[in-house]
């Protein structure tokens, strides 16, 4: 079997005395679209931050292409991040730059491309997300869905190997949601990426992803294809995937 591009082994992460992630292990296959799902506050975004090296595990390891992320030096970590694109929850576009400059920023910072080449690449990416005529706009004049698409273009401008998506559908209307989902799929397939999506949007994910991991109560409680998880006999998985009120997963936050 091919080596996974991301391997998380026996990961434990604590914040103070609270255990956020407890003995979580995941293998993420190269070229796949994977969802990490679970109720709000379960530690999904924390996993993304551990993968991108923003946080360090208390125990266990995160490997990307065989490199232990937490053991890299500051310089090595920044090198490694050039292969990772991240789309944050709100897009996090630079508010003082135009759409064009937002997407061009990583190219200007990490390559020696001429102005002409930068323009060609940025416009090609904008074209691919259907926003070629927005290049001169400022981020505040974009709708939520458009901002998310610009952020996607920026996340993949360096042709990364992995793209991490933090709640890419949150706050979008159904049409924008489907547009973003289709773009994620198209970008993943065209560029041969590995996409990791953190979300609690079960409906969109069942259509989009190849494989799901479900977190609950600090633990990984299930993994498999979305279809298999939808019909899981595990009560917690069934409750989350089918949105049932009654079940082992509590709506109230646990005591600190």
């Amino acid at each position: 079997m091919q080596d996974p591009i991301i391997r998380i082994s026996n990961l434990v992460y604590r914040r103070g005395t609270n255990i956020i992630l407890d003995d979580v292990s995941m293998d993420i296959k190269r070229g796949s679209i994977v969802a990490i799902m679970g109720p709000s506050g379960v530690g999904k975004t924390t996993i993304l931050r551990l993968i991108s090296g923003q946080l360090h595990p208390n125990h266990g390891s995160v490997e990307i292409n065989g490199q232990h992320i937490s053991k890299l030096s500051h310089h090595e970590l920044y090198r490694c991040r050039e292969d990772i694109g991240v789309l944050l929850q709100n897009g996090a576009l630079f508010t003082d730059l135009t759409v064009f400059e937002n997407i061009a920023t990583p190219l200007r910072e990490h390559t020696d491309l001429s102005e002409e080449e930068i323009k060609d690449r940025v416009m090609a990416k904008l074209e691919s997300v259907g926003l070629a005529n927005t290049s001169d706009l400022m981020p505040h004049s974009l709708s939520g869905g458009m901002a998310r698409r610009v952020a996607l273009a920026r996340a993949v401008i360096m042709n990364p190997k992995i793209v991490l998506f933090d709640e890419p559908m949150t706050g979008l209307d159904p049409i924008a949601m489907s547009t973003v989902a289709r773009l994620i799929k198209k970008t993943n397939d065209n560029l041969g990426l590995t996409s990791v999506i953190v979300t609690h949007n079960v409906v969109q994910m069942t259509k989009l992803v190849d494989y799901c991991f479900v977190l609950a109560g600090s633990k990984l409680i299930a993994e498999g294809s979305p279809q298999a998880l939808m019909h899981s006999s595990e009560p917690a998985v069934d409750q989350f995937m089918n949105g049932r009120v009654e079940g082992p997963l509590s709506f109230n936050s646990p005591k600190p």
Partner: protein
Amino acid sequence: MPKDRSKRRNLLRPIAEAGHCGVFLIRMLAGIRLERGLLISTLQQTYMIGARSLVIIMICGFFVGMVLSLQSINALQQFGASDQVSLLVGKSLFRELGPVLTALLFAGRAGTSIAAEIGLMKATSQIEAMQLMAIDPVQRIALPRFLAGVISVPLLTALFNAFAIMGAVIFSVGVMGLDPGVFWSKLQTGILFGKDFMGGVWKSVVFGGIISLIAVFFGYYAKPTGEGVGTATTQTVVLSSVLVLIFDFIMTSFLI
């Protein structure tokens, strides 16, 4: 026992914070390179924080010059020495009032805007996005603003002094009927380039550095909330004003 420990921690906190700020300054200065990108963003910031402070500096300078000559003439007339007004106004302006008042105005006008801007960038995940793109935000965001502050304050001080002298001329010569030849000759012969003029320049360089360092530091480490940004802004204006006055005394005792 725990009370003692927390008291000690509270007492040591300002020292730890000062150390943290020192490390931040070294981290910034380590990134100074003769690069086109840094040059352009420093010039942009010099325009944003320096050029946009021009009007307030000119108006304040003009009225400070007027009031200073009014007070000086009033006092000097008692000793029959009102022809010395330009010397008194010039010495006070170049040595003390010019650099200190410009610095205090700069702290209120530009320092707060730097802290709020960086704090807001943090609250909207723009700083995080930059780190994830393998771009060091200290170099990209903080350094150009710091350098712009160091460049802007001496230039603004020069402008403040020029407008103050203009205000003094208009009041002393135009209103009080002092001989213009006497006014200018006393000013020209009494103000020493090394001690008076350059002393003020050195002070304003240091004040510019202090204010912009405090602003970028508090902005960068602001809590990513509305309240956090507000606190960073207040801390910037309070601490930088106090430090300007403390450093003014220290520098004056060496330069006098």
